[in-house]
């Protein structure tokens, strides 16, 4: 059900790991729902010079994490903020409909890491909102008629 790209990023995740003294760290998701993503970013002169992730989750969660870090790396904060779930999913040649919710993590984790960076450095980043408590809360239950 997954695209070749998804499978590739799942089997060979890019930027998996930790950054010891990261500029920002964001953890989103919820073990209850089966997916947690943590993103570490290194920021230098407004540019995300390094990024790493750890993910507990399904194949789609892992692949979107990996793809998101690829898209983010080397970007300015402003550019990075333009990366959406949709663009991550598209870069992966799409996700099965039931798995789209997993791609929400990537955007949220990036924002959470940036928020952490901003908090630590007392910065205001235009357009950035504080991380949600629970990323799945706003999702309606799959209607089962």
């Amino acid at each position: 059900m997954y695209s070749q790209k998804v499978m590739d990023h799942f089997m060979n995740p890019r930027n998996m790991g930790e950054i010891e003294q990261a500029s920002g760290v964001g953890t989103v998701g919820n073990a209850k729902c089966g997916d947690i993503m943590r993103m570490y970013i290194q920021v230098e002169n407004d540019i995300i010079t390094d990024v790493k992730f750890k993910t507990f989750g399904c194949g789609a969660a892992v692949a979107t994490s990996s793809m998101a870090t690829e898209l983010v790396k080397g970007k300015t904060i402003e550019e990075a903020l333009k990366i959406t779930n949709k663009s991550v999913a598209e870069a992966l040649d799409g996700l099965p409909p039931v798995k789209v919710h997993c791609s929400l993590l990537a955007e949220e984790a990036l924002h959470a890491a940036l928020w952490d960076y901003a908090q630590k450095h007392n910065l205001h980043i235009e357009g950035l909102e504080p991380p949600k408590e629970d990323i799945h809360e706003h999702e309606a239950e799959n209607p089962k008629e």
Partner: protein
Amino acid sequence: MNKIYLDHAATTPTRSEVVDAMLPYFTQQFGNPSSVYEVARINRKAVDEARSMVANALGATSDEIFFTSGGTEADNWAIKGIAEAYEQKGKHIITSAIEHHAVLHTCQYLEKKGYQVTYLPVDEYGQISIQDLKEAIQEDTILITIMYANNEIGTIQPIEAIGKIAKEHNIIFHTDAVQAVGHVPIHVKEMNIDLLSLSGHKLYGPKGIGALYIRKGVRIKPFIHGGAQERNRRAGTENVPAIVGLAKAIELSMKEMEESNHKIIELRDYLIKGIQEAIPHIRLNGHPTERLPGNVNFSFRFIEGESLLIGLDMHGIYASSGSACTSGSLDPSHVLLAIGLPHEIAHGSLRITLGPENTKEEMNYVLETLPKIVQRLRDMSPLYEDFLRAQS
């Protein structure tokens, strides 16, 4: 690459003997068994023989077996058919928290129609308590429906004890035995079972066929209305090839059960022991002894089941995480939650279900591969990172 199928609880291949038995009924003996003419007699006879083969396997009589389109339909029919037939007597149904969705969702549907359903809890091994069952019985209880063996964790329920209590209280007892028939010995009379569901594709028979055993004397309303097939109880042109195939599969599985289980249990125990030795932070789910011969179910902490499955898949190993039906849903398996696992541990579960064609070599390959995949996923997991940090 090896291809190792370890998901026999999801479905089994149709045995070649079964396919061979079915084939003539597609192209040569294709007639409608309800027809008057002589050629249809061969079909009618084939269906009658199949019925008595299925009856024999359960300790029932031929006129107590009704063919359905599968286990799901049999469950729906049993529960809705009894609910409707006995609604004057009462509207209370007792089931368990770990039933297959075919039973659970049917019960939930009846709740919306004004029935009251008690979902008995299970212990950490997945068994209901007979004491709980006794206490749940009300004046207006019309049906107890408790599965024979669980599809995820393999736990076998105390069916005989449940049957005894149902009989004492004059309550109909249905059991979803889709995972049990052909795998463990069953005798509906000795066990006081009033209705029993089974399905072809779980015992090396074809998909799209199943049966409901209905004890003589049990009143039940039809579920599918139409022609007079199945003695006016289940309408629809008989699926002759599949009926013949189901019977053949059941016959073979009864004949080979002892030998086959001997082998499967040995493999299963070897695998369980091997996994327990190789991988820390795991939990064996299900009952230590009262479990299906082929069932292995583990939870691996800090990792999520689907990625584990895909990792195994990439190595040619086909297993499952909870029921095949629940994949694609957000919630972890209701069965694993019911035995008390926290959500995040329930998410990290793996079900391996063995069949007679599996080999020790295959188990060794799994024991070689699985620990590496688990380790890789743990290295990727923020939960594991936190755990290690907390340890140090």
